Structure formats: C-alpha cells, structure tokens
C-alpha cells in the first residue's frame, strides 16, 4: 500500500510523520537534531529515500544534513563516517560551506545590497531557507539562502557553488531584507524544461532563468506594493511564496505580503486573484496535486498581526484558480486561535484524494485526506513549525 511521509522543520528540531495511504494513523519520529532550527527538509522525487535538511543556528552557523534511508539516519555529506580528514590531513566539512561567488569569470562580483536604512550593506551568509532537490538526479540539489542567493550542489550536498548570475544581473543593489531577513525562500524547477527555474526573494520579488541559472530576469510586472517607494517597481516586492503545478509550468500562483496573484505566462505579467478572501495577507500558497486550478491559502489578519482573523484558523480554497474562494473550517479551531502559518509550511501529497498539510507556529501539524474538506491534527505540541514537505511513497 502506498504511504505518506511528512517532513516537518521546527525551531527546535525536525520531525518525520509517516502514515499509510489512508492517512488516519500516524507515527511520529523525532526530534531529529534537537535544539537546532530546522528551516527546511525536502525529499528527492528521483530517490524517495534521499532527504536533504537545513540545520541552522544563530550561534553555530549552517549545517547540511542528508539521509539516504528515508530519514532514519543522517550524515553530513561532506563528512562521511570513518573518513574524517581529506587529502593532506585537511578537515572536510565542506557541506556546510556556502561562499558567495567573487570570481572574475562571472562578471563583477556583487558585494552589497540595500539595507533597512537605505544604505548599501555587504552580502553576509546566514542560513539556508529552502532546499530543492532535482526531480531527476538525487545528487543535484539547490539551496536558497539568506542573504539572498542561489547555490547548487551536484555531488549530494558535499560542495556548493553559487549561481552568481542571479545576484549579478543588475538589480541586486536594490534588494533589501524583509522583516524575516533577505531570504531566497522559493525555488521551483520546471520538469518540462530543465533550464527554467523560478525563485523568489523577500524583499526583492520573483525571478526566472531560462538557461539553467546563468542569466536571470525579474518577473514582477503587475505586482503593486503600496508600502514601497515605487509601488510598481521592477524589484523590491515582498513576495512570500510562489507555487506551480508541475503539469502547467507557465502558470504561477503567488502569496505576496498583501495580495494573492496569478500569472499565466511564466511570470511575465501578474494579476490579482484575491477576490473574496477576508484578508489577502498571508504566507503560504499551494496547488492541488491533481487539479491545477485548485489552490490553497491561509489568510492572516495583517502584517502587524500575524494570526488568523477573529481567532478562526481557516484554509481558503479556490477551485477556479483564484478570485472565488471558500473557507475550509471542518476540524480546524474556530475560536481563540492566534497562530501563524509560515511560508514553507504547507504541502500536498499526490494520493487520491489529494492530501493537504500545514504546520503552525503553535506547533500543530494539520492534515486533510480529502483535499481540504476536513482536517485533523497529526501532532499538536511541536515547537513552532517552520516548514512542511510531503513525500508520497510507492
């Protein structure tokens, strides 16, 4: 029987939730890496046993972990057990090393971006926000980092190299941090066109490459952000998350700081589809696994009050690709609920019916085995949830 593995990153460790295809009874393992901030875990669709994890700390920096057995055991890819030093006795640990490109080969090195005070500030690596494994090669994985940049490993996470064309394409000095830092939080790989990648940065906007990451362009036309000096600027928008259905790589859905947006031409032009949402502020957005026009968001009251309206935790679903939304409340708390759902904390499985999952800053992970019609908590008392990803297992 098929099954589901839900990978949960929290402020104080990682958890792996597993169930069979019925998705009624769950096993919970963890905390893995107890005490560390686990920003993101994601499995490879090319090899479901391969999982990458971003383990991070304000004290101790960035660690990349990798599992080759579905999350049972973990190693740092650059430091395999029993092989503790490299040639010449030099230590390894290269898998933790993210160094911004400064080579002349990729053009003039980009060294500063705009800071909160409007002045230029040096680029400083802080952490990996998102790991996106290739859909075809288990050893190839992309990392979106803070301060915003995109890295790639082609050796299973042992070594990382920046795709410097993103920072170097010209608008980098105008990027600035959002309240959560200047993070590259969304990476979407187009399975039909391996050379096309979408990324999003808070607060710079969305960007696209059509040549495998060498050159990039901003794709923010149609976004309107009243809170920035030029509301329709080419860059500077606080994009919270972007989602795509694999069957329609030209159609993108975006949860912006305010506004839910849609593009039907690979990001060349966006239009607002907030429609009848009670508030269009929020962080997550995702697409049904089998219905490309069915999308989900969790409206949050405002940028100043990061919790649901009226204390009611409601997922909103649109079956028309936006504009017309219905509240999904069955099984979710409808009073006194003041949690947030962060940008990478929603995911879907590909079973029939589609499963939908999200985690909250209150430590709950909710699941729906019927595409959102009803919900139940899988776990309720974890540390604040930073990310949720799902693997559908054969």
């Amino acid at each position, binding site marked *: 029987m098929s099954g589901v593995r839900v990978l949960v990153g929290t402020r104080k460790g990682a958890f792996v939730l597993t169930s069979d295809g019925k998705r009624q009874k769950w096993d919970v393992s963890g905390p893995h*890496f107890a*005490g560390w901030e686990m920003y993101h875990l994601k499995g490879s669709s090319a090899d479901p046993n391969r999982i990458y994890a971003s383990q991070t*700390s304000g*004290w101790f*920096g960035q*660690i990349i972990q990798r599992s080759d057995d579905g999350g049972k055991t973990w190693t740092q890819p650059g430091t395999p057990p029993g092989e*503790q030093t490299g040639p010449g006795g030099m230590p390894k*640990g*290269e898998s*933790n090393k993210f160094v911004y490109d400064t080579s002349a080969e990729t053009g003039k090195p980009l060294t500063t971006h705009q800071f909160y005070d409007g002045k230029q500030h040096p680029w400083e690596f802080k952490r990996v926000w998102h790991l996106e494994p290739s859909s075809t090669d288990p050893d190839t994985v992309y990392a979106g980092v803070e301060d915003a940049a995109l890295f790639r490993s082609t050796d299973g996470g042992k070594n990382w190299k920046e795709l410097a064309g993103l920072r170097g394409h010209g608008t980098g000095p105008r990027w600035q941090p959002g309240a959560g830092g200047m993070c590259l939080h969304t990476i979407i790989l187009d399975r039909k066109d391996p050379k096309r990648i979408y990324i999003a940065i808070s607060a710079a906007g969305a960007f696209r490459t059509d040549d495998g990451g060498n050159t990039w362009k901003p794709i923010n036309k149609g976004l309107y952000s009243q809170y920035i000096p030029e509301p329709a600027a080419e860059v500077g928008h606080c994009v919270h998350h972007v989602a795509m259905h694999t069957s329609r790589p030209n159609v993108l859905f975006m949860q912006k700081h305010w506004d839910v947006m849609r593009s039907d031409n690979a990001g060349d032009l966006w239009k607002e589809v907030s429609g009848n949402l009670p508030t269009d502020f929020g962080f997550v957005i995702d697409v049904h696994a089998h219905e490309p026009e069915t999308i989900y968001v969790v409206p949050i009251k405002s940028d100043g009050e990061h919790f649901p309206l009226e204390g009611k935790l409601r997922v909103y679903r649109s079956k028309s690709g936006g504009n017309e939304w219905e509240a999904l409340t069955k099984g979710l708390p409808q009073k006194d609920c003041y949690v947030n759902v962060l940008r990478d904390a929603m995911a879907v499985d590909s079973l029939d019916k589609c499963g939908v999952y999200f985690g909250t800053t209150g430590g709950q992970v909710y699941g729906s085995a019927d595409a959102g019609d009803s919900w139940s908590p899988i776990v309720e008392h974890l540390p604040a949830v930073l990310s949720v990803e799902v693997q559908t297992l054969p």
Partner: protein
Amino acid sequence: MIRVVLPGHLRALARVGPEIQLHIEGPVTQRSVLDALEAQYPMLRGTIRDHVTQERRPFLRFFACAEDYSLEPPDTPFPDAVASGAEPLLIIGAIAGG
C-alpha cells in the same frame, strides 16, 4: 593532551561527551586548538569559526582558568594549565534568545 568542553549543541553534532581530548604539537593557542579540533571532528568545521575568514563566530566565547580569551589574537598561547591538561578550555555559547 589538552581538554576541551564544547557547548551541548556541538557535542550532539560531533557525537561526543561533555569533554574531549586533543593532542597538539607546539604552542597551545586558539588557532592550534581549533585546527586540531576540526581535524578530529570535521563536522564542526564552520561552527566555531567562519570557514573562510577563520574569525570566531560572534555568539561563542573561549574561557580558560576563569579568564575570557575570546578577544585575544588567535596565536596567543593559552595558560600552561590548559596546555598541560590540568584545566579545560571552555567553548561557550552566549546565553541569548531561546
């Protein structure tokens, strides 16, 4: 042999107990201790000092014999008591946040 006490998070990462021992040839300094530590436990590379600049991470401090050596140049010798193993070198995470 010198003795080094790591913060709990790094003990878990390196899969070691409360105190580890390192063999160091020559002067026992911040640099030589960290070189030896990273050679023996490569998973710690980048967690105590930056990969590239080799600067101490801001929220970590080095204490020995009740003195703070965090701001000393990296080649300053630690006290004889640390070099002889009589006293441990304490690597401590700042008490800040949750």
